[in-house]
């Protein structure tokens, strides 16, 4: 898969493509990463599903979706109109779900790559459970690797002390790249009702608050593996994305910022180009991992 530019959108913050198509020219994105898909349609969590926090937000959407078949019927025709590569974020309640969803999607040319969600904090089974134990993590990647020739991009959980071990494991299991980071497990409680602000009790923290955490994880992972890293976490301005690239990310994803300003991915693309010119670089590769540390 060739990304036109180093900027994609973060799964779950951009729907399946059509939602923002009136506001953003999808052909200008480096890639479109769609909301998480599992084999069968999934209903997700009850409401409230999101909550705004100081400077960011919590979400516990719970991966509702049309399932692989529904995705192919409802969204592939739309997505196939664009030249932009489509990264499908996949997840499963059990290991074999990951294999099944790949089998169901692999025939679609429109599906350019798989982002393997091993880190969703908002589903009881699957998700994060797979992302915080290196052995389980590796076994899922091996399973998926055996099913497809398309690029596979495991998405790592942030709440581990040793992100490097996961990055290394991903590389060893044949992953083509890794994505860092998913949301940070978090919680908010209403002090009048004593109820959690989210129906799911817990959620994932995203937005500007997590950026310094994500930069550290990307830096550590870049030292531990040689495959490309898609960095994300609180990218709201071009400078944020550039910081990820310098820390060691080869590409970046804009997430929560889409809700605030849908043109953020395009502003980031332009901002990176401006920065490269200013600094006299000819390609993004010139700045990847150039941090003096």
């Amino acid at each position: 898969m060739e990304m036109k530019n180093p900027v994609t959108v973060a799964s779950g913050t951009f729907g399946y493509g059509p939602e923002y198509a009136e506001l953003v020219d999808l052909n200008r994105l480096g890639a479109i990463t769609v909301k998480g898909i599992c084999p069968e349609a999934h209903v997700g969590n009850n409401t409230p599903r999101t909550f705004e926090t100081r400077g960011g937000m919590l979400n516990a959407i719970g991966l509702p979706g049309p399932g692989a078949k529904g995705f192919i019927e409802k969204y592939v025709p739309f997505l196939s109109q664009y030249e932009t590569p489509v990264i499908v974020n996949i997840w499963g309640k059990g290991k074999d779900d990951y294999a099944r969803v790949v089998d169901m999607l692999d025939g679609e040319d429109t599906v350019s790559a798989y982002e393997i969600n091993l880190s969703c904090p908002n589903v009881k089974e699957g998700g994060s459970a797979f992302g915080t134990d290196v052995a389980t993590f590796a076994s899922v990647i091996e399973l998926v690797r055996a099913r497809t020739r398309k690029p596979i991009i495991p998405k790592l959980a942030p709440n581990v002390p040793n992100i490097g071990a996961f990055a290394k494991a991903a590389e060893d299991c044949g992953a083509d790249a890794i994505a860092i980071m998913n949301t940070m497990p978090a919680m908010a409680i209403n002090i009048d009702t004593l109820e959690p602000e989210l129906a799911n009790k817990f959620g994932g923290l995203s937005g500007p608050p997590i950026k310094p955490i994500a930069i550290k994880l990307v830096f550590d992972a870049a030292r531990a593996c040689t495959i490309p890293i898609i960095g994300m976490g609180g990218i709201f301005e071009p400078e944020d994305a550039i910081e990820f690239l310098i820390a060691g990310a080869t590409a970046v994803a804009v997430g929560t910022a889409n809700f605030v300003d849908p043109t953020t991915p395009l502003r980031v693309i332009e901002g990176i180009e401006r920065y490269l010119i200013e600094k006299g670089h000819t390609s993004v590769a010139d700045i990847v991992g150039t941090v003096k540390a």
Partner: protein
Amino acid sequence: MKQEKTTVVEHHNFQGEYRILRLAAPEVGPRVQPGQFLELQVPRLGERILRRPFSIYQAGPEGVAVLYKAVGRGTEAMAAIQPGDEVDIIGPLGNGYPEADTGKTPVLVAGGYGNAALYILAQRMQKKGIAFFGGRSAIDILLVKEFEELGWEVRPTTDDGTLGTEGLVTAAFDPWMAAQDKSKLELFVCGPNPMLKAMGDRAIDNGFTAWLSLDRNMACGVGACLTCVIKRKTETGWEWARCCKDGPIFESREILWED
């Protein structure tokens, strides 16, 4: 749907705690259909980041106006907005109300900002009918004169009886409804959930149509985040529908009310 950097033309207190914010929005204004809303980025919201959704009170080639009340951080921060300020909006969003059935008597039922949310509809409808506005007190009943000037008969109700019938909006609506050919009624409702549900129940029990405008917390406003979902009935049971994209207008029979 457009994203537009608008300029504030006017921002003043309207009635009670309600304020009117008028924006020069040549892109969004002309596209507005009755019942649609916009997502407004509150300037200087500081440590909060999400946009806030607002129904469109008035719209025209030159722009839009919203009528709002300060209820929390975002709407309180809006108090500082000055004429000339830039305000980024995304809109119009959501599906408006369907064309009114000219064979029926249009009935508007609203409370709070719902009155404002129905104004464009009232304006553009050929056939004028009757409007039931509910509120806590006289001060909370907005736009009575404006709706009358459009040719609508307005029946206010207030919890404390300071204006119109004392009681909930149903206190005025039910006796009126009793005297009508119910199959000939078409309701357009925007207000708090209990009001929506009360009207929806009546529509179902009495066999008329009621278009309800739902209010849910939103994050994206365009259908991408799946925050604003409600349960919509299906043959087999229910499915999630997004208020922002599949709504905010639903017919009473579509909605599966919880608790």
